[in-house]
Each structure stands twice: as structure tokens, then as C-alpha cells.
């Protein structure tokens, strides 16, 4: 489900089934802007695809956006606690920003896909989507 009026309506009725919050993390930097823009695009692409596959159990929230020099870890902790109070059991942060990726994040390296062939691009994206989906499924099975 996505953070839209229509999907939230659905969420309200099926709360007990939706226990996972997915939050893409998007850094903004003043230098090397293009790399950060690529990360942003890439994370959004993967997050949307994961949401499509796991629509019934995952709520995709708007991204956590931060400046590169900010201490994002403390905000991630804050967000995690907030989502826990909402009733989400699994809170996943998705990032392409290698500098912040520790075990609290699911890290997917962003690739310069601009000039890549469409079919090859789909293959790479699908692999990464599967990687994220596996990570989620592992989380779910560990809990049960």
C-alpha cells in the first residue's frame, strides 16, 4: 500500500495484515548532485516495485529525506519508534547511500542505469527487488 488516501482507506480496514513499514531514504548533497539524484531515483524505483509485489503487507511511506551532513541515524531511530507506536512490527529503511548503510538499513547500490539497455536494466532492477523482498521475507519468518 502507498501513502495515498485510497490505500490508507484500505489500510484502516485491514490493519492486522499490514505489519511492515517501508521507508526509502533519500540524501541531498550540494556537491556531486547527480550521484545523489541517481540514488533518489533508484531507491524510489526499487521501493515502488517492492510495494507492488507486497502490496498487502507493506505500507510504503514517503521518503525520509536528509542532507548529507545530517546525522540521519538519530532520525531513523526516531522514525522507527514512531512507526512502532502506529502498530508496525517491521520497519525497513531502504537506502542507496553507502555512507549511512549499517544493519538498520537495507542497502541497494545505485547503478548508473541511464545509458544501460532497457532489457538489461530490468534484469538488474529485478535482482535488486528480489534481494529486498528476500530480506523482508526473512524478517517475517524470523518473527513467526
Amino acid at each position, binding site marked *: 500500500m502507498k501513502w495515498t488516501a485510497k490505500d490508507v482507506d484500505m489500510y484502516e480496514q485491514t490493519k492486522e*495484515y*499490514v505489519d511492515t513499514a517501508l521507508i526509502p531514504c533519500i540524501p541531498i548533497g550540494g556537491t556531486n548532485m547527480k550521484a545523489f539524484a541517481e540514488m533518489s531515483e533508484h531507491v524510489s524505483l526499487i521501493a515502488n516495485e517492492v510495494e507492488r*509485489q*507486497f*502490496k*498487502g*503487507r507493506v505500507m510504503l511511506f514517503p521518503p525520509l529525506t536528509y542532507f548529507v551532513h545530517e546525522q540521519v541515524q538519530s532520525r531513523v531511530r526516531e522514525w522507527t519508534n514512531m512507526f512502532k507506536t502506529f502498530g508496525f512490527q517491521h520497519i525497513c529503511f531502504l537506502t542507496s547511500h553507502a555512507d549511512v548503510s549499517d544493519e538498520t538499513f537495507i542497502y541497494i547500490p545505485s547503478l548508473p542505469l541511464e545509458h544501460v539497455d532497457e532489457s538489461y536494466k530490468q534484469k538488474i532492477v529485478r535482482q535488486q527487488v528480489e534481494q529486498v523482498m528476500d530480506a523482508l521475507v526473512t524478517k517475517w519468518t524470523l518473527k513467526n
Partner: protein
Amino acid sequence: MSEKKHRVSRRQFLNYTLTGVGGFMAAGILSPMVRFALDPILKEETGQDMVAVAQVKDITTEPQRFDFKVKVKDAWYESEEPRSAWVFKDENGDIVALSPICTHLGCTVNWNGDKNNPNRFFCPCHYGLYEKDGTNVPNTPPTSPLHRYEYEIKDGTLYLGKAKPRGEA
């Protein structure tokens, strides 16, 4: 004598011309407005076009996943949306194209996704199960079978249309 009877007075002449010209102007203004108001009714329903998905020779009795894209028009914004289908031939040799969208809450189901339930479709979100023909397995979350795509075969290529609940497609 008859000429006299049919004589048009200045007042009448002006009346006729003014009503005539006024009528034309009113029609000129109103007809586009009426056309606008009726437009949604007159527009023929744009059913989703059939999309080429796979070659018939590639289809086996084992369900395979095919990904394709459909054009979606939301108001004036056109975009391409990814879709998938599980396609196989049933025992009569007929092609079956199932929508992978779980009828429970809309996750994507996988063929043979669960080791304990071979030859079934499995939904990883809430462990829903479907038989090969798309029938939901009782006592799992889904309450209705997987939807089926309308399909068409032209020159050895499989085209898929809309996914519809079983019984309608």
C-alpha cells in the same frame, strides 16, 4: 393583389432578421457547450487494448511468469504500468493466463513459492495458496480464485487484455 397581402412591413422584416441572426448566435454559443456536456456519454468506452505478451510456442504446461506493460490513462496523464501473468496450458491444451494479484490484499503470488506446497501458487504476504487453475485453497486468507486475463492468439503470439474474476473471462 396577392402581392399586397404578402407585403412585409419594415417592423416584420427587422423582427425576422433579428430573430434569425440572434438564433444563429445562440446556437453558435450553445452547441459547443452541449457537446462538452455530452462528451463523456458519447465517448466510446476505451477498453484496454490487448498487449502482446508471449509466443505461443514458449508456453508449457508449467506456469511461467511473463512481464509486460500496459498503457494507463489517468485523466490526461498517460503512463505505463508493469503487469505480470502466469501462463500455462491446461490438460485440454487451452491457454490459461492468471493474474498474479492475490485476491486477499493484492500481493504478487508465485508458482511453487513454498517448499511445503509444491505445484501451487503461494502468496508470501499472508501465506495464501491457490491450486494450479487459480482456485483458492480453503483455510488460507484468500476468499476467491485468482483472476484470469482475457486472451487472444494472433499469428502465434499471445495477447492479453483485462484480468477478470473467474466466470467472467
